[in-house]
């Protein structure tokens, strides 16, 4: 499998973040290159999700900066990040509970919708065409994720695993350049994890989307990622290819344990 790993697309420099007394992140730097699958691992409470939250502009780090395609930001702003093409899934499911699967995924395309309020209210000509165009794109994603049967079900009623899939669908709908995935495979059995891996790999292959992935299943991480960052209590203790990381003594001590 040949894949062109490109230039650095996302460069995290010296990020520190603390909440009151808790230092969630201290002086973290790492980068993500175009088209790669970059994993972030670490024990619970290491600061992985917080890292994504900083990139997304949900948290404002006290120190450090983040560069996207060479453009450096002190603080990210959620809207801006979305416009730049960064999408995200959530560890604790942040779906829009009252909406159907279709609407949830459609909402991922809202940034691309151009008609104004009045046109939308009248729903004539261009507004309707636009709606249909986006619907087509979303249907592709729905097919891809194999959730056709649940299209019109309110997401709140879906079992956990399918909700995770919808979450991914919503992120994909943004046609992102960078996709941040926070434990997308938690609560799934092997079969379902395989499906999920296939989705991630396909997206990565077909659209060249860069993927940043947090996952606790080492099998998955080691199999599909190109490079891995390891965090522990807010510090970075390892960075490199899966093999390098697997053999890094600090990482073994802090996270993997002896067995793996």
């Amino acid at each position, binding site marked *: 499998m040949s894949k062109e790993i490109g230039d650095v697309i996302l460069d995290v420099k010296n990020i520190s973040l603390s909440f009151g007394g*808790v230092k969630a992140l201290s002086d973290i730097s790492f980068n993500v290159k175009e088209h790669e699958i970059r994993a972030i691992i670490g024990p619970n409470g290491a600061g992985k999700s917080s890292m994504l939250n900083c990139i997304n502009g949900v948290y404002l780090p006290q120190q450090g900066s983040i560069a996207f395609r060479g453009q450096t930001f002190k603080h990210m702003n959620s809207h801006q990040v979305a416009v730049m093409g960064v999408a995200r899934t959530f560890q604790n499911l942040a779906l829009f509970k009252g909406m159907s699967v279709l609407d949830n995924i459609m909402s991922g395309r809202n940034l691309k919708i151009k008609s104004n309020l009045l046109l939308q209210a009248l729903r004539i000509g261009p507004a309707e065409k636009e709606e249909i165009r986006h619907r087509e794109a979303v249907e592709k994603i729905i097919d891809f994720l194999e959730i056709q049967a649940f299209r019109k079900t309110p997401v709140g009623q*879906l079992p956990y695993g399918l909700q995770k899939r919808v979450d991914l669908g919503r992120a994909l709908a943004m046609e992102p350049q960078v996709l941040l995935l926070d434990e997308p495979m938690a609560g799934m*059995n092997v079969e379902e994890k395989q499906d999920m891996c296939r989705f991630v790999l396909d997206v990565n292959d077909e659209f060249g989307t860069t993927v940043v992935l947090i996952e606790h299943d080492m099998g998955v991480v080691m199999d599909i990622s190109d490079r891995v960052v390891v965090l522990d209590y807010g510090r970075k203790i390892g960075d490199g290819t899966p093999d390098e990381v697997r053999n890094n003594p600090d990482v073994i001590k802090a996270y993997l344990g002896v067995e793996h």
Partner: protein
Amino acid sequence: MSDSNIVLNVSGIEVIYNHVILVLKGVSLQVPEGKIVAILGGNGAGKTTTLRAISNLLQGERGAVTKGSIELRGERIENLTPAELVRRGVVQVMEGRHCFAHLTIEENLMTGAYTRSSKTEIAANLEKVYAYFPRLKTRRSSQAAYTSGGEQQMCAIGRALMANPSMVLLDEPSMGLAPQIVEEVFNIVQDLNQKEKVTFLLAEQNTNMALRYADYGYIMESGRVVMDGAAADLASNEDVKEFYLGVGGGERKSFKDVKSYKRRKRWLA
């Protein structure tokens, strides 16, 4: 299974959500005293629903058991409140953590001891939980909502242990936990099971782990039990291997190489 020491006997239950969505279509299972029983199955199979039915937490989800019976040590329990069940020693750890967001970790744990009255016992239990999960101790005064996903999972499990249960219903305990913690959680389960004779019924996606620690397993699929047997037997079943353990045909397949095409499960045929 010998039915002499069955603590929990679920027979033929049907569960309907919202008066229209039929989810469990006649599920029966038995949990013997002092054993660990696992319910396995894919997303939406009905594992959570089964556990909710047992612990009587369906009402809040607008679900109801419409057929069948559930017995705890010979007593019908369908009409007990969850609180009464806890007093009988049955505690559920809910899927998705459900920590009390505004309470600190320690307060969360303390509410778990609501049914306990002895101060010394509570203090001892608290120490035990902290010993099991040292991470919780360091975060004890942080509001639960502001702890990481894994910390919340530990908190939820610890909170259930505070009630000194004789039977625990664990819903996806390993979700979101780092591998060593998963290992630890299962060790704790084993520990409690062996030392304190706590019975466990656990719903798990991590089949590998579950079958390693459980005595007996049920596999559910779309609201039915499709297979059951001793854990060891299940672990060597071809289908189970392929679909739940990811080691079909001998070697473990890399996640990178899975094909879109998959064999159909035998029981679906």
